[in-house]
């Protein structure tokens, strides 16, 4: 039995006082072996790898490389131990060629000779079966080519231990197969490989061992050959935790918003939503679950009129009259002028929701600035509203005119949600409204959403914590890579069912 490449013993990392990212994680990776780390969003996978690659430093525990205890305090240290990490977000200079990016920052291999370097790049590529043109500029490359550059960059520096953070998230199935072929070749040549993913079939396909994390805690390691999807899902999502959220029955649910066959591109022109169809009903909370980046953001922005849809339609049913209005190709202002009270709490609070350098009062006016006549602003109403929100939602702020950027995350969110609810919406869309909030603020937001539901509002809630989705929502729609993989009743479904729907791969190339 040879010495393990990396051995982690009881690694613990906390951020701030309360957020535990990793707790007592123990892992072993051997040379010539692929270890997959599996876990939901926020289970601490990336944090763990960042500690091995020197970006973070563990609070407790030991890291052994080749059997010796080491302290890795910077990415340079990691290189010293021949550890290379390929991040999810590429660090490449767009106007440089592949070779220029690969040798960037290297000081120690003698004379600057780009031709020699690009020969070496070709050698590495040939050795592992990469396809790459060393002289091609990064901005002309596809995502998968950029990833190749990142991997070669690490190999060029002589890494023997490779860690890849969700390498397949941005790849098509064909590209994924190519990447896996390369990874297998590296494994055969004796490199140790750690790969983060949350796609179960990929784990079963590529890895030798699987380590499972759940909410920062290390659940266990199993041999891939001795496990199956069911066991892994159970390890990943765990037993159901009952949360103390009051859930009333839906109030007189009638169709409010009908989304039909929605197709949508993101800003780079990639298709992110295909054929999404669902109905949001008044007086109920529709949860949307899915791996981060599966198209949730684009879905809400499309409904709100912020992004154009390629095909499909959104119908709004006016509660009083039952008249159908079509929202396709309408701007947010046009939607508002049609008398449709659509409120949107975006996930990017200080980017899309509020203006950070303005106070609470001024932020209130972002929704009401068109009221009033003449060229002067009327400040009384927004001031009253701001005071009301600060009082009722217990926003901790020195004054109503303090820039909201200086408030804590929870208070910022209260201001935003308060403003959106004050518009007396008939449809309320909230994207990750409790992200980064402490437990009390979270419950306050849940209660606000529940109140809106009781008032007959159609609430759409995009969440990441399955326990919350199961405890708060009436129905849960699961999105997997841009398609609806299922709509389930939140009262009867299980975490395992949702977990499987989330990771279900819809074969696009079949």
């Amino acid at each position, binding site marked *: 039995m040879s010495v393990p490449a990396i051995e982690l013993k009881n690694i613990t990392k906390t951020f701030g006082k309360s957020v535990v990212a990793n707790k007592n994680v123990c892992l072993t990776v051997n040379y010539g072996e692929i270890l997959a780390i599996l876990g939901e969003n926020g289970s601490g996978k990336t944090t763990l790898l960042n500690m091995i690659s020197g970006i973070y430093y563990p609070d407790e525990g030991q890291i052994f490389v080749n059997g010796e205890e080491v302290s890795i305090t910077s*990415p*340079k240290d990691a290189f010293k131990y021949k550890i290379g990490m390929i991040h999810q977000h590429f*660090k490449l*200079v767009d*106007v440089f060629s592949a070779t*220029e990016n690969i040798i*960037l*920052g290297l000081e120690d291999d003698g004379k*600057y000779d780009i031709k020699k370097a690009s020969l070496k790049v070709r050698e590495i590529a040939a050795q592992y079966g990469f396809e790459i043109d060393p002289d091609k500029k990064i*901005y002309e490359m596809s995502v998968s080519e950029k990833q190749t550059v990142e991997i070669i960059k690490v190999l060029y520096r002589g890494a023997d231990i490779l860690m890849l953070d969700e390498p397949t998230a941005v790849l098509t199935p064909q590209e994924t197969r190519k990447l896996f072929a390369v990874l297998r070749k590296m494994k055969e040549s004796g490199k140790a490989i750690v790969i983060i993913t949350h796609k179960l079939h990929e784990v079963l396909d590529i890895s030798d061992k699987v380590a499972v994390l759940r909410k920062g805690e290390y659940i266990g390691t199993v041999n891939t050959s001795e496990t199956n999807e069911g066991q892994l899902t159970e390890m990943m999502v765990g037993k159901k935790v009952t949360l103390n959220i009051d859930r009333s029955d839906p109030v007189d649910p009638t169709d409010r918003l009908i989304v039909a066959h929605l197709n949508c591109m993101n800003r780079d022109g990639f298709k992110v939503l295909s054929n999404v169809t669902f109905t949001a009903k008044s007086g109920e909370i529709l949860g949307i679950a899915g791996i981060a980046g599966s198209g949730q953001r684009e879905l809400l922005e499309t409904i709100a009129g912020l992004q154009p849809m390629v095909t499909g339609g959104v119908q709004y049913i006016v509660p009083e009259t039952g008249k159908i209005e079509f929202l396709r190709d309408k701007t947010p202002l046009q939607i508002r002028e049609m008398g449709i009270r659509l409120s949107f709490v975006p996930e990017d609070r200080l980017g899309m929701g509020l203006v950070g350098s303005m106070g609470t009062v001024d932020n209130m006016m972002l929704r009401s600035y068109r009221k009033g006549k003449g060229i002067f602003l009327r400040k009384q109403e927004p001031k009253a509203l701001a005071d009301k929100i600060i009082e009722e939602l217990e926003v901790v702020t020195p004054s109503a005119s303090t820039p909201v950027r200086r408030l804590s995350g929870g208070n910022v969110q209260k201001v935003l949600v308060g403003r959106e609810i004050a518009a007396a919406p008939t449809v309320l869309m909230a994207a990750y409204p409790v992200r980064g909030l402490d437990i009390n603020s979270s419950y306050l937001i849940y209660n606000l959403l529940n109140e809106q539901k009781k008032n007959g509002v159609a609430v759409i809630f995009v969440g990441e914590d399955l326990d919350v989705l199961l405890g708060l929502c009436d129905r849960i729609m699961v999105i997997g890579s841009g398609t609806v993989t299922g709509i389930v009743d939140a009262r009867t479904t299980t975490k395992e069912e949702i977990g499987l729907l989330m990771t279900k791969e819809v074969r696009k190339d079949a």
Partner: protein
Amino acid sequence: MIMFIQRMVIQGIPLLYGSTGEIITEKSGHLNLGIPGIMYVGAIGGVIGAFLYENGAGAANMVPALAILIPLLCSMVCSLLMGLIYCFLTVSLRANQNVTGLALTTFGVGIGNFFGGSLIKLSAADVPSINLTATSNFFKTKLPFAKNLGAFGEIFLSYSFLAYLGIIIALVAAYVLRKTRTGLHLRSVGENPATADAAGINVTKYKYLSTCIGSVIAGLGGLYYIMDYAYGVWSNNGFGDRGWLSVALVIFSTWKPDIAILGSMLFGALLIVQNYIPNLSMSAQELIKMTPYLATIIVLVIVSAKNRKENQPPMALGLSYFREER
């Protein structure tokens, strides 16, 4: 014709210094709009050095080497200080680059006029200018055999050493940026500082060095203007808008110092061409003086329309880099 070419080169060289300095600075991601001020300070620095030496030693007893070295060093130190102020504000304190640069220009012109005015007072001349003809003559020393070579000598070899130095600096800068590891690292800092940082490049060091070196080079442009173009005569606000022309030249040359050499000659020609067209009205003369800016706008339109990434400004130009901001 030969006369025209000579005047064109003498007009162009200060612009070339300014834009070479600005290109080096901008390649590190810093838009230094203080260049006009820095060139002005570089000029007054040289004037102060020359004034003190000329008056201290007496015009008759001046040693040629000292007469050149003292103003040169004074000019370089003064523009280096300006560069350091800009660096400290924009790199270390991450102040807004546009505001800092514009403030520095105002400041530099003020400093220049203050010391210029003081020196004029000291020299007790009856015209509002400082006359440093003795020093200027040393700066204007030309190759002795140039006039024996006919037209060739007059067109290519009839300039002072600072003119050739400017062209050499531009060529060296182009080579370093394009062909060396240092250049690669510097460009990566200006394009994507986070990537450069992750690759182990000292981003702050590169930003400081390139901005300070760029400032010193730009300051030499001011010195050349006074000692060569103006025959050693300083008068307040005599520098005109040459600083802004240098900044325009950076865009004109699409951030390439070697192209800036040709661009500076073109700009120089456009600046003086009205003197060689007979019977021009005053308004027509002013219109012709606008042509360098017009040329810059045309280049901007063409470059933007072609949208080749290599000809665009460095991606992180004007943005402060803060490692913990993700």
